[in-house]
């Protein structure tokens, strides 16, 4: 039942993840090798190059596979960062209450008020190109706010439930109370939040890489493959189409998965 229920979206995401992991085994060419800049540049898809080649005669299919490593890896790391920050801020605000709560939440509001892409551009433009791990940290660092609000709200709700109050009356200290009695109840929410975050950070990475501020050539990412089509979008359509399909498929699957994970926990509650 569960397998069928999470179904296609989980399969698509899993497939993409597997392709990324096994990229060195699957890829027919070296993703950064200029195969023949004169004769094999900007070739349309063919049996030799399934997804065609880019202006430097690199194999797009191979770049897409290796690009999945960068794009999915950075997205996963960014989710971890955003989730951790969100949980810490949200839980601290809910547990401490009062002044701390007000301060943290106003800070969250302020962070939410800033246009994310602009902020990211500002950071990356002022620091120059970032290594993948730092890029993930920056993307995650600008995406924790909704999670923080969610965690605060849910922690407050759980704090008022009979079982948490009973544990508090028993004398369980605050941090333990949160870890032992609130966190388990929070897990369904966090599962949904994580998948939704994934769907939101993936296009951000692609956008940054497309703007030349994320993953930089010669390393591949789904965003910077499209960048190579600059000025010839219609003529070199394969440079746009295939990475776009990958981005849309991953994002859509993550969104659908979030919905299904949520529905599944809801059914368990009933």
């Amino acid at each position, binding site marked *: 039942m569960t397998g069928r229920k999470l179904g296609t979206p989980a399969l698509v995401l899993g497939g993409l993840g597997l392709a990324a992991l096994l990229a060195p085994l699957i890829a027919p060419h070296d993703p950064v090798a200029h195969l023949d800049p004169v004769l094999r540049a900007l070739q349309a898809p063919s049996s030799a190059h399934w997804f065609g080649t880019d202006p430097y005669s690199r194999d797009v299919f191979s770049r897409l596979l290796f690009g999945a490593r960068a794009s999915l890896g950075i997205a996963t790391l960014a989710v971890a960062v955003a989730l951790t920050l969100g949980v810490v801020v949200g839980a601290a605000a809910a547990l401490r209450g009062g002044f701390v709560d007000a301060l943290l939440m106003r800070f969250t509001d302020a962070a939410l008020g800033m246009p994310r892409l602009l902020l990211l551009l500002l950071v990356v433009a002022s620091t120059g190109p970032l290594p993948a791990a730092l890029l993930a940290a920056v993307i995650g660092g600008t995406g924790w706010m909704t999670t923080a609000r969610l965690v605060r709200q849910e922690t407050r709700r759980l704090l008022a439930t*009979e*079982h948490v109050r*009973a544990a508090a*009356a*028993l*004398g369980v200290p605050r941090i333990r109370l949160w870890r*032992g*009695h609130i966190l*388990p109840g929070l897990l369904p929410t966090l599962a949904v939040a994580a998948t939704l975050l994934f769907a939101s950070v993936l296009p951000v990475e692609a956008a940054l890489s497309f703007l030349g501020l994320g993953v930089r050539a010669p390393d591949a990412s789904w965003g910077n493959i499209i960048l190579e089509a600059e000025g010839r979008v219609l003529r070199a359509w394969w440079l746009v189409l295939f990475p776009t399909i990958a981005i849309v498929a991953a994002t859509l699957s993550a969104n659908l998965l979030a919905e299904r994970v949520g529905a599944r926990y809801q059914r368990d509650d009933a």
Partner: protein
Amino acid sequence: MNALSALAIRNLSVRSTREAEHHIIDDVSFTLAAGSSVGLVGRSGAGKSSIGNAVLGLLPRGLALDPASRITLGSDELTALDAESLRRIRGRRLAMVFQEPLTALDPSMCIGQQLTAALEAHEVARGHEADERADAMLATVGLRDTRRISRRFAHQLSGGQRQRVLLALALLLRPEVIIADEPTTALDATLQAQILDMMDALRSEMGTSLLLISHDLEVVGERCERVLVLEHGKLVDDGPAERIIASRLSRGSGSAAVARARAVRPSDESLSDPSVPLVSTRALSVHYRIAARLFERAAFTVHAVEQVDVRIARGECLGIVGESGSGKSTLARALLGLENPTSGSVTVLGRTLNVNDHVMMRALRRRLQLVPQDAGASLTPERSVRWLLAEALEVHAHARGAAALKRVESLLAEVGLEAALADRLPAELSSGQRQRVAIARALAAQPDLLVCDEPVSNLDAAARESLLSMLDALRHDRGLAMLLISHDLGVVRRLATHVAVMYLGRVVEQGLARDVLDDPRMPYTQLLRASVPTGRPRTPAVVSEERDVPRAAPAHGCSFYPRCAFPLKDEGCLSEHPVLRPVTLDPNGHTVACLKVPLPPSL
């Protein structure tokens, strides 16, 4: 087909759709004669509610009616009807009164709207006429000030008022049959008696037939001519109420009656040492200030607990009795140090509680443990019994790691649970088992005082009885002091060595359990005792006026005066304020706060 039967049920079977073999209801047949009342009793899980739901066509998903089942209302076969025709019959000719009126009423509509909506949906009346009919019905069910009530929302009404509104809703369309599913289980004894009296009176007046579903044999025996007994989905008994009640009581077959343990042995007082109270209060008062709200009344003060002196020694169990809103729970919270006294004091083990002294409170809190009313909800659903108990042991620093895990098993044994249950989640336990886990969790702290707030109100008869024996044994064997809060006099009688009766925040009668319960002097205690269902038929009553507990005591005189039925009551009761006075010569004996109760001769 009997022309006189209002509702005939033939070969009713309800199956689970997943396991066709699993019969929730197995071949049940009975008829409900026009104008008669039939009681349907059985333990929780016997399938009582499924019969009610099946008749209404409201079976939850996962349950299906067997095709051989026949449900006939008057001359119409309900199982042959489509959903729309059934909807028209529901409410109009067949009405349901649910157990929990707050969830059965629509929170987003005021009472008046809900009543008129029902009239309009069945095209009985509309507009002004509907308003009039709704108003008249609210008056019929004994509500005063119906104009005001009909503008209110469900949450703004008291429990008794809500149940009356629900009844008004059921009676509004003058149905032929009313199915009442545990209509008074959530109410305290005096309200229960009022509501049931009213249902009786209205039934005989309107000629409605009643199917009363309850786990409580006494309630049913009192109100119904015929009683059906359901066990595991099968009808195991069917006959006149007197015969069924008599046979069930004598057989002692774990039926509801047994749990009440009416044949009481007075609890022994041998263990108690009254000279050294473990916990005592002196003139304890707790007031709440209710702030003024926009467009609402001005700020006022609620005297939740007023000038209360109680004491509990080791091995004693003090039962606090009173209606909802009498201050029982506030008193318990103050004893646990969860509530700051407005005046007066609480002394625990010779030290006066100070809620703001965190160091002292932490040291004392371990020794005062609470078993919450709803034990099921007090256990974290994702954690196993073992985890929950080990945590309680660790928090109180008695044991860690392997030692804690070992202690878990002995704790489980102490509350009569098998060690095999340790790895279950709360949802995998029965409500009686959950209650025991909650008690084990409180015992992990090795407390001196255990406060039990309505410890068995959610349990069925058999589970109730065995839990009460266990609590009694704990008090006896461990010398544990207990504070027992209950509105069920049967439970108090079973466990308490001492009893304090509370009314509007004050203790109005106090003494040894057997004195207070067997020989109540205060008219209020007598009223509480008379409200306990007995299983014997009552003389049909007239519709009783709404008599909810007032929120606050009158400024002068006896606070019980407006409800008092004592023949000696007079104007004097209104001028002088009664204090607790002894009614026996024993200095530690029975005291009563009533001006008209005769004093012992030598005083």
